[in-house]
Every structure is written in C-alpha cells, then in structure tokens.
C-alpha cells in the first residue's frame, strides 16, 4: 500500500503497472464484485485494461469510465493473488484520481466526503442524526443526513446499518501506577461515532494490560476514504495533521481498533511512533498478561481486508480470541473474503454490497457460531446488518458481530 507517487505525477507514472497485467483473467476467481456482477468491468483485469486504454488514448475519460473504476471494494484480493504481481490497488487509486481530475466527482460523493467525513462534527451529526432519526422517527432530522439520503437507495441502508448503541466518549481514567507502556489510542471515525462502546472496550483492555492510554488532541479522519475516492490532497492534509498530533504525544505506540485506519496510519511517511492494530499490540507486544475469566461461546472470525491483506495481521486476533478460556473459535469458509462493506461502497452500491454480504453471512452461519468477531468497525457495521437481516428472516445464525477486543473486555470483567 505504500509508495504513493505524488498527486501531480498523474496516471502516466503507472503505465508499466498496467502493462504488467497479462490478462490471464485469474483475478475472476477471487473478486467478490465479479462473483455478483459477472461483468468484465467489475473485475481487476477489466479495470486495469480501462486504465491502459486511457493511457494509450484508445478511450476518453468519461463519467461511465469513472463509475466502473469505482465498482470495486478495494479489498486487495486481486493484488494479493495476481500471478504477475500487478498492484491493482495502487493503479486504481491513481486512475481514480486522474478520472476525478478529468471528469469531476459525482455530486453526492463529493458532499459526503467534503462535508461529512472531512469534518468530525458533521460526521457526528450525520451519525447521531441518523441514529436519532431511526430511533425517534423524527422525520425533520432527515435534512442532517442529506449527504447519505441523496445516494440512490442509500438512506434505508444507512439507517438499517446503524447499530443501536449508546453514544459516549471513551474515558481514559487516571494513569496506572507503573504503566508498562504509554500508548496513544486512535479511535477512527466509525468507532467514535457509531461504536463508542467499542472505544471504551479498547481503552479498558489496554488499561488492564497495564498501559497508560492517551487521546491526543487534534486527531481527525485517517484520510483513507479520501485517498480511495481519489482526493490525494485532502488525504495528505489529514495525514500531516494526524502525524503532527501523534509525534507530539510522546507515546511509545499508536494503537487502533480500526483495520482501515491502521493500514492508513502505517502508511504515513513522517510518523515517528510505531502503529499497531490493537490485537497485534496486545498479542505481540504486551503479551496478554492480565487474568481472564471463561466465556463459553462459539465464535467465528472474519478477516478484514485492511487487516489481513492490508497489514498482514491474521494470527493476532485469532490468538487473542483463543486466549479467552472457554471460547470456541471455529474457522468459517472464505474467512478473508470481503464482507462487501468497503467504506461507502455499501451506500453507493447497495444491491451488490448486499449480495456479497449474504455470502459472508452464510459462511459465518454455517459454523454454528453465536458471534462473528472482526477487527474492524466497518466490517462489524456491515456484518451486524447482515446478521440482523438473517434474524429478521427467521433464519438461524450468529446473533451479533463484535470486535475481538470487546470479547476480551468481557473476559476481564469481574464475574
């Protein structure tokens, strides 16, 4: 994921990458979008060839080309499995950015990105607005969530995707007497707005393991959504701001519970503090020393794309779960296949996203697990929504989606 060539360099710098594709078509076997859409433009080969056609002047940039380039989860499965080593992810980011320069951004997405995600307060408002809207039926709140509402078929989905949890800020409490580590907790957008309980669990678990947790001032969105949607300049601005805040926090590590933020942070060039996914930190660094009580429950684990392929973290969350006495971890089929959430993909392509999700949920249900654990709040949002639909349809399946750290927090709690 690293090596972002500078924005100004344009797509031309990626011609070799496009030529590296031998058009073998093997990416069709792993692409979740292709499995649903069955169209050449939906698979990596088609998108790489679109980039190549643009570069060779055989194709004019157009909104239609842009739409096809965004019909993608950025899940990285193609990049990870390409026999020719085509870095599809990198090529796609550059092609998207070029297209947005040439033909502009679709109106709605622009709104969502600039007005909502770039501004924590309006994201909070949109999230809180949506939550309130859903819970109270106060229709007049709808105008807060225009950005989501104007996406085709997006509002219903956005509403239904919201987990019903209370909103509160994590409390870090006083520093432990002799802290083993001093760590900064980076709570991403999704966790802060939609999963405040998860944020609290992360803090609680880190404290149990003897860490002093700090929440540095001035942190914002990690910038990954902006980069994915071709706005490298905005992404860089956010990265610079976060880098400064984290460098000045005088901590030994930055810890996050969000796979996407983690992958984004690990890519910052000027950051002087090591970044860890929370499970990686707990298992590989802190070593899980605090005592735990048994939790008799069957759990299956879903690998977030940005954790498994993005950061190479597959074992740590599983080891963390196995460290909970009584917990029965059962592997599901295709554990590292994308759940279809992929940031705003679930909102911009609700139908496709849903069908990808159905396969994930079916794989999870087949394990007989009561809980699906996953190391990314965005996956939890999507899978939780899928489980809700399963239950509403009267089908058997896991009852909730939780972050491994939430289960660990339960195991620490006094009986």
């Amino acid at each position, binding site marked *: 994921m690293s090596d972002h060539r500078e924005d100004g360099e344009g797509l031309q710098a990626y011609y070799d990458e496009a030529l590296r594709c031998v058009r*073998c078509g093997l990416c069709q076997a792993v692409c979740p979008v292709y499995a649903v859409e069955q169209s050449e433009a939906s698979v990596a080969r088609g998108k790489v060839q679109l980039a190549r056609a643009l570069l060779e002047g055989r194709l004019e940039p157009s909104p239609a080309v842009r739409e096809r380039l965004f019909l993608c989860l950025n899940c990285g499965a193609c990049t990870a499995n390409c026999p020719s*080593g085509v870095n599809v992810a990198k090529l796609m980011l550059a092609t998207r950015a070029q297209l947005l320069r040439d033909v502009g951004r679709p109106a709605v997405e622009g709104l969502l990105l600039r007005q909502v995600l770039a501004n924590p307060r309006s994201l909070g408002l949109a999230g809180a607005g949506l939550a309130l809207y859903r819970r109270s039926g106060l229709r007049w709140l709808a105008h807060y969530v225009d950005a989501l509402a104007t996406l085709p078929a997006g509002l219903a989905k956005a509403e239904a995707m919201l987990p019903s949890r209370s909103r509160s800020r994590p409390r870090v409490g006083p520093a432990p007497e002799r802290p083993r580590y001093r760590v900064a907790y980076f709570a991403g957008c999704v966790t802060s707005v939609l999963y405040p309980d998860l944020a609290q669990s992360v803090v609680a678990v880190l404290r149990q393991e003897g860490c002093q947790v700090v929440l540095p001032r001035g942190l914002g969105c990690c910038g990954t959504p902006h980069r994915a949607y071709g706005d490298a300049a905005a992404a860089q601005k956010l990265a610079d701001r976060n880098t400064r805040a984290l460098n000045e926090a005088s901590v030994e590590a930055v810890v996050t519970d969000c796979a996407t933020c983690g992958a984004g942070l690990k890519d910052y060039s000027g950051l002087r503090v090591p970044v860890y996914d929370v499970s990686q930190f707990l298992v590989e660094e802190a070593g899980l020393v605090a005592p735990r009580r048994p939790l008799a429950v069957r759990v299956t684990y879903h690998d977030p794309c940005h954790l498994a392929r993005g950061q190479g973290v597959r074992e740590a969350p599983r080891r963390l779960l196995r460290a909970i006495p009584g917990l029965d971890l059962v592997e599901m089929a295709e554990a590292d296949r994308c759940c279809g959430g992929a940031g705003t993909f679930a909102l911009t392509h609700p139908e496709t996203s849903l069908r990808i999700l159905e396969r994930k949920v079916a794989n999870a249900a087949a394990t007989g697990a009561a809980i699906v654990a996953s190391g990314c709040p965005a996956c939890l949002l999507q899978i939780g929504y899928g489980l809700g639909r399963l239950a509403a349809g009267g089908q058997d399946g896991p009852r909730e989606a939780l972050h491994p750290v939430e289960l660990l927090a339960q195991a620490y709690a006094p009986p």
Partner: protein
Amino acid sequence: MLSAQIKHELRAIVGERMALTDPADLATYAYDATHYTHTPDAVVVPASTDEVSAVLRLASRERLPVVARGSGTSLCGGATPIRGGVVLSTARLRRILDINAARSCATAEPGVNTAEFMRAVETRGLFYPPDPSSQSVSTLGGNVAQGAGGPRGAKYGSLRDYVLGCDVILADGSRLRTGANTVKNASGYDLTRLFVGSRGTLCFFSQLRLRLLPLPVARRLLLLPCADLAAAARLALAITAAGLLPSRLEALNDQAAAAAGAGQTSAILLCELDGSAPGVDRQAAIVARLAGAQSGEDRAGEAAEAIWNQLQGWPTLARVQVPRDRLPALLAKVGELGGTLRGDWGVVAGAGTGGVRLVALPGTKDAGTEPEGSAPAAEFAALAGEFGLVRPAAEPAERLRRSLKSAFDPRGILNPLVPLAPDGSQAR
C-alpha cells in the same frame, strides 16, 4: 459502429442493461488472455436460448460478426472480436440443469464455471475428468468451444470423449440438438465431435450434455525429483511403458518445482495415481522402482491439491503440442534455452499428453510489457516450428474446411478470422 436501429433491436432482445454499447464497457471486452486488442461494437448478455437465437438472427440479417465469450481466458484469441461486431457473453447462462448419477451424465449451460461444475459432480460421487489449467475461472462452454482439456487427458481421454451431445444455435438463429444422452450412440455424422473445438466458428453452444465417471476411491500424488526436464520426460515414458496409466503426469523445471511448493530444488515429475486403494499402492510401488534413487515423497488429499492449485494459478504464455515420445528431445532443447528463460519463467510439460506450457511464475517481471509476445515465448514458438508441429494446411483439407464453414455459417459471421487449421491442430 452500429446504427441506432440495431442497438435498439439488441436492447429489445436482451433488455436495456444487458446490451452494452458505452465505450467504457466495450473497452473491457476487447481482449482475452492473448495480446490482441479489438474493440467490439456491442456486448450482449442474454439470459436464455431464445435471446441468443434472436441475437443471432439479427446478426445474420445485418452480417454482423458474433464472438461468443465465457470468461475470456482463451490463449488463441478465441474470445477476441477481431472484426468487431457483437460479443455474446455467457455470463447469465450459468445453470447446472441436471446431474444424473444413474445415467452418468450432466446437463449444463455454457457459462457454468468449470471448477464449480467439477465440485458439484464430486459431491454426488461423480467425476468429470477434463481438467484445463484455467479451470478455476474458465467456463464449460469455453472449454468445449476450444476443446480444452488438461493433463488427465492422458488417462481419461480428451474433452471430446466427455461431450455426449449439445444444443447449439446456428448462425441464422435456428436450433439443433446433437448426440444423445447415452454413452453409446453410433452411426450418422458425428456433429458433436465436429462442433467440439470449433472455436465458435460453427455454432453457439446453448446446452452441454457431459459424460461423468464414478469418482475414483483413491488418489495419490508422487513427487519424483529428476536431474532435468528431459530426464523427467524419460521417466514418464518408462512409467507408461511399464503398463501404468497415471491420471496426471506433469514435468516441472526447477523454477516451477520450487514455485509449486514441491519442496524440491531440481526438476520434478508429478505423478498422480488413482483407482482402487490397493491398485494405487501397487502402482506406486512400481513407479518407485522405476524412479530408483530418484524416488521422492508422496502426497495425498489437500497437500496434493495445493500443488495442482499452484500450477493452475500460473498464466500460460505459450504452448506447444508434440507427440509424447518426442518430449525428451524437445525438453532437452527447452533446457538449452536456460539463459533466455530467466529465473521467473516456468516450464510445465504434460508428460502424459505431450502438451508443453511456458508459464509466468508468481512475481514474473515484465510479463506483459512486450505486447507482441515476450522473447522467451517467441523462442518457445520457434522450437515448436523446429519440431514440425505447425502443419501447413493441406489443400483438400482446407477446401473441405471452407465448405463446412459455409454450410453452417454462409454469411461468415461466427468468430471470423479465428485461426483454425483444417484438422483441428493449432494454426499458431
């Protein structure tokens, strides 16, 4: 360029969303796994035989070229619209209609994924032997149109032996059913065999009736280290000369062996045995004796499948076919190419079938940077010429081919210009 009228008619047949004419879509159906690029005028994705038939009627009336496309993994341009026209995708013809254990046959639509089909019949205790290396992504229709089989052909016969019959749609949109759903079906012109491997030049396959076998009870994979590729080919010949018929016999050069995870640093011969459990053990003992000092390890189940999966994950860059007794000589020559075949190129030789593939191993650099085919691929192809494999079209055969083509496709709309030698041998 298609007229607005024709575009309108295509949309009326398959529906608004299933007739693609935006340049952005056309650019993604301009190629298959070869380096040719030719942009079609339209792509249609029919959902039924009726729709296919209507598209062909229209194309015939307008003399529009039609190219059928499965998953676009052809290595001979079979799915490239060389003359433009309409690409007819089988993406929505993906049903397995019937798996009949009592009759040992299955009926499927052309867009069914090959590997999925193989798994589906295996869960019923049945076995579909044709195993093209592209099986994880290719389609049954594409395999049948290309006559694409794989290493199991040495024991189980070619793909043609597993197509009992088919429903096809001819160039003018009319329908024809060939063959039967019985294993024995004598007398009369064998149209089924004519159509299989005709590369989309004679008809569109709308339904395939495929022959199945009982799934072998036991299967074992022997990994036999050899001094070099030629030695591996000689060992393969010795194995068959001893009266054994392995279900797969593939020789890998040292780079390929390492990339396959075979835990070897030399060339190896992969020898898969199947049948009854005692039968497999007996054969394995004989192979071990023939391999002598070379006898290596033994894998079964998932560990064996993992190796085959690796092999299938390597894109084929060039392919030659020789009579298998000439393999040692050819492979000795391939060995001499050593310098040209840099570290990342692999050679996979079908020691049972005589088909030799030049493959790109994971991480191969600049595999696609030479649009006119890479240097090793060219050297490889030259070797094929040297071994006398490209047979020039003999005149009476070429005349017959032309009359056959015009009998089935008088307007020449079906996959025009796809190279096809009269006797079915590769023209390139």
